[in-house]
């Protein structure tokens, strides 16, 4: 898994590629926890290059969202593959996260 971050006018864009699993999700958690500690908002996560995501990845996003709620931050996920999208829906998280089809949609109003 590779994580790249980029500044956007307000907040941060995170681009991830590869698989987010129980071996790699701690690195994603480190990035997200550092940002949420600084109360960064919005955080936009582009999942276009993510081929696989397991429950540790979803738990990591849930924890980040919980942290962001304390400062009314916005965590936006975009470019979910059909498979990843199905898992979010099945885990009943598709209505909890802000999910956008494209990065452009997620970046609106930033």
């Amino acid at each position, binding site marked *: 898994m590779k994580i790249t971050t980029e500044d956007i006018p307000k907040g941060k864009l995170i681009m991830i590629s590869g698989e987010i*699993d*129980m*071996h790699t*999700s*701690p690195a994603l*958690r480190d990035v997200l926890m550092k940002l949420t500690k600084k109360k960064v908002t919005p955080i936009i996560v582009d999942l276009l290059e993510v081929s696989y995501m*397991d*429950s*540790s990845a*979803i*738990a*990591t996003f*849930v*924890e980040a969202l919980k942290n962001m709620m304390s400062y009314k931050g916005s965590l936006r996920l975009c470019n979910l593959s059909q498979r990843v999208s*199905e*898992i979010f829906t*099945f*885990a*009943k998280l598709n209505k909890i996260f802000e999910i956008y089809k494209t990065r452009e949609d997620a970046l609106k109003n930033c």
Partner: protein
Amino acid sequence: MDEKIVVKNLVTRYGNKTILKDISFSVQQGRITAIVGGSGCGKSTLLKHIIGLLKPASGEIWINGKDITKLSEMQLNDFRKSIGVLFQGAALLNSMTIEDNVALPIREHTHLNEATIKIMVKMKLDLVGLSGFGDFYPSQLSGGMKKRAGIARAMALDPEMLFFDEPQAGLDPITSAGLDALILKLRDIFKMTIIVVTHELHSLFTIADTIVMLDKGELIFEGTVEQFKNAQDDRVKRFITRTPEDENYCPEDYFNILTAD
């Protein structure tokens, strides 16, 4: 469709008794395969071989391109991380809460943060309909709830394959139907390869994509549910119609049994 598991000419013995006699069959990726047969036919023994708990006398078991009968104990431990097993009695640790039971494999095999683990465990418990029961101990749960907790634990490490050893045993029909629905959900959503050892006909016809039937350690059927229902083999027919086998009575043998030292 890809073959996930291929069993070739498997033979196993307990002492002088041959339990599995030259068993060969394959399991398709993302499908539910049911292993059926009467009590004592070798179903659970076969399952224990496929999950690497027993070594056969001869034969091969190919999973993900590796013959697991040839793996060292360390390699087998790695293999076992990719599978989840629900044992007959759910095998929960009674001294631990349900949450800790489910968290145990994650704590043992990963370096995940405790906050991540707690959320994962809550997700698994919700998946099996046990939200809010994390603080309960196994002794405080019904039989069906214990099975569900066992499934949550089997799912803890997001396995590619799930194995169920008689999941419906001891459950009422409604709880049993709920468990069937859950097994189907795991196949459809997570595209898991699932093997279920069972002798419950209703459940078999509800969940199985493919059926493998054993009788006295021999494989007597491998095919789809429709093929199973139309099979001409007398032993398959008797299983479906729940017809008891005629007692094979031999007066001399019986006398010898009674009078043997």
